[in-house]
């Protein structure tokens, strides 16, 4: 077990597909004893490795506590995690897939709001005239907080969202949202518009290693592909 390198891969979605393609292209075959539903797999040509399929957020957590040595996950999720966790993880390679932007989006019909500066004015209007704070629904409270504050927006309230964030402004749950988007089509379909200067982060898939197990990760035989 001491020499076994554990690798966390995304368990579902487009990210999983892209990772599997990457491995295939590099002649690395994954085998699972329990079939498609098995969360564990092995790389045929590398006996000292074990692959675990996990939620992309979980991969970050497990790299942080050292139970994973290597992982593939999104830059957005890494940057959103607690600073103490980020300090324990190193990005070794940025991959050419999983590209998406974390953006600030407002309802289409807020035609007077084109930029973050407009939003800042609106947020003060909410506080001064309505005695309310502008509500921002997001799955990314940390990145959103940092971005809005550096742009001078201080009068707002974060509403945590677990999914379908695009619906929030139209169900009375928030006024605006921040969300991850690759083509912008989901936002558009839900009558939302990205602000001109509203890109919080340009994200992509990354190879990450646990700093604690850096040497072990380097010995894994995956150096060409992952480092």
């Amino acid at each position, binding site marked *: 077990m001491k020499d076994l390198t554990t690798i966390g891969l995304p368990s579902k979605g487009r990210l999983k597909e892209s990772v599997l393609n990457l491995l295939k292209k590099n002649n690395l075959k994954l085998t699972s004893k329990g079939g498609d539903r098995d969360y564990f797999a092995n790389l045929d040509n590398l006996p000292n490795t074990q692959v675990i399929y996990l939620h992309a957020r979980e991969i970050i957590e497990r790299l942080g506590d050292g139970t994973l040595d290597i992982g593939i996950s999104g830059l957005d999720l890494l940057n959103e995690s607690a600073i103490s966790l980020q300090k324990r993880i190193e990005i070794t390679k940025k991959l050419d897939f999983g590209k998406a932007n974390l953006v600030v989006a*407002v*309802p289409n*019909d*807020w*035609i*007077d709001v*084109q*930029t973050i*500066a*407009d939003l*800042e*004015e*609106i947020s*003060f209007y*909410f*506080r001064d005239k*309505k005695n*309310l*704070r502008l509500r921002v629904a997001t799955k990314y409270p940390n990145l959103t*907080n*940092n971005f*809005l*504050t*550096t*742009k*001078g927006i*201080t*009068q*707002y*309230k*974060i509403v945590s969202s677990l999914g379908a964030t695009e619906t929030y*402004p*139209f169900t*009375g749950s*928030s*006024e*605006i949202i921040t969300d991850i988007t690759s083509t912008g089509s989901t936002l558009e379909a839900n009558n939302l518009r990205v602000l*001109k200067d509203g890109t919080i982060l340009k994200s992509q898939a990354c190879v990450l290693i646990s700093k604690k197990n850096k040497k072990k990760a380097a010995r894994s035989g995956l150096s060409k592909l992952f480092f």
Partner: protein
Amino acid sequence: MKSKNYSKKILKVFKKRGFVFSEPDVLLDSNYIIQRSGENFKKLMLTFEDDSGKNMCLRPDLTVASCVKYLEKNSKGISKIYYSGQAYRRSNNSKDSIVNDQLGLEIIGSKKKYSDDKEIINTILKSINKIKIKDIAVNIGDVNLFKQLIELLKIPERWKLRLIRHFWRPNYFEDLLNRLETNSDIDPIAVDFDKKRFFEMKKLNQNHEIASRKISEILFRFDKKIRDPRSFSEGKKTAKIIREFLKITCPIDQMDKCLKIFFKKYNIEKNLIKNALPIKSLSKSNYKIIFSTNFGRDLEYYTGMVFEVSTLKNKKEIARGGRYDDLLKSLGSKRNVSAVGAAINLNNLSKGI
């Protein structure tokens, strides 16, 4: 032991000058603070959820806690109080202590602004003198001077409000000045496109709300924005005036002269100076007092005079205070309640000498 002795002597001065003891609550509703300081301040607060699901915090600041108490007591008159207690907040600097012992005083609800400002500064200086600390520097400013300067400049109203709102965030404020002298606020292509939607929306029910904003509100602001463009040359000139103003730093006895030179250079009304009277009165003080137009930009609730006392030896801040006339309203008061106060940081006082 040292700080206990200091504390005793300082409190004696507070009492002698007519301040009455008041103990602000240790636990506050977090919303009070977040409403005023913004969502990002949350991470500096020590919070927990009580049994009813309400978010509470340990008081991060004794001034806010004193104001909350004033409002809860439904006080209408003048409250001239002092307190001795601890403020609890995390800091961005890991070396800073989470618990800060403070001795403070506040005058809330009085209309004698000039004499109250003087009273607060003089009481703090007298207290420091009482514990025989001589080697101190006093920095002083008046954030209201900046506000009045902005009102006199030729820029669109929304830019005036924006600059005043962000005076407290020097980095972002500099971004604003850069924007003021360079790019435009309005994207002509987007505006053309949105103009079509503007006319469509005019036909809709104006009271209908889109994400908590009435259609009438959206259209009013859109119309106002495109009718109030900003000129490049004025923007550049304005940014220069503001930058120059914020460079004014001089010994207090030269404040009048420096401000007059500045106003003459840019042909601005000189009446602003008379508003800095309580500061001016300090020019007879024995201490080294430096006036700066750029001073007091790190705490949003100040609205007028603001000052800081630090040790000359290791530059530790030992006292700070100022006027905060808008704070009580932002905490829920229905009327304007003027207030001024200051606090001595006992931890720094012991370390600084």
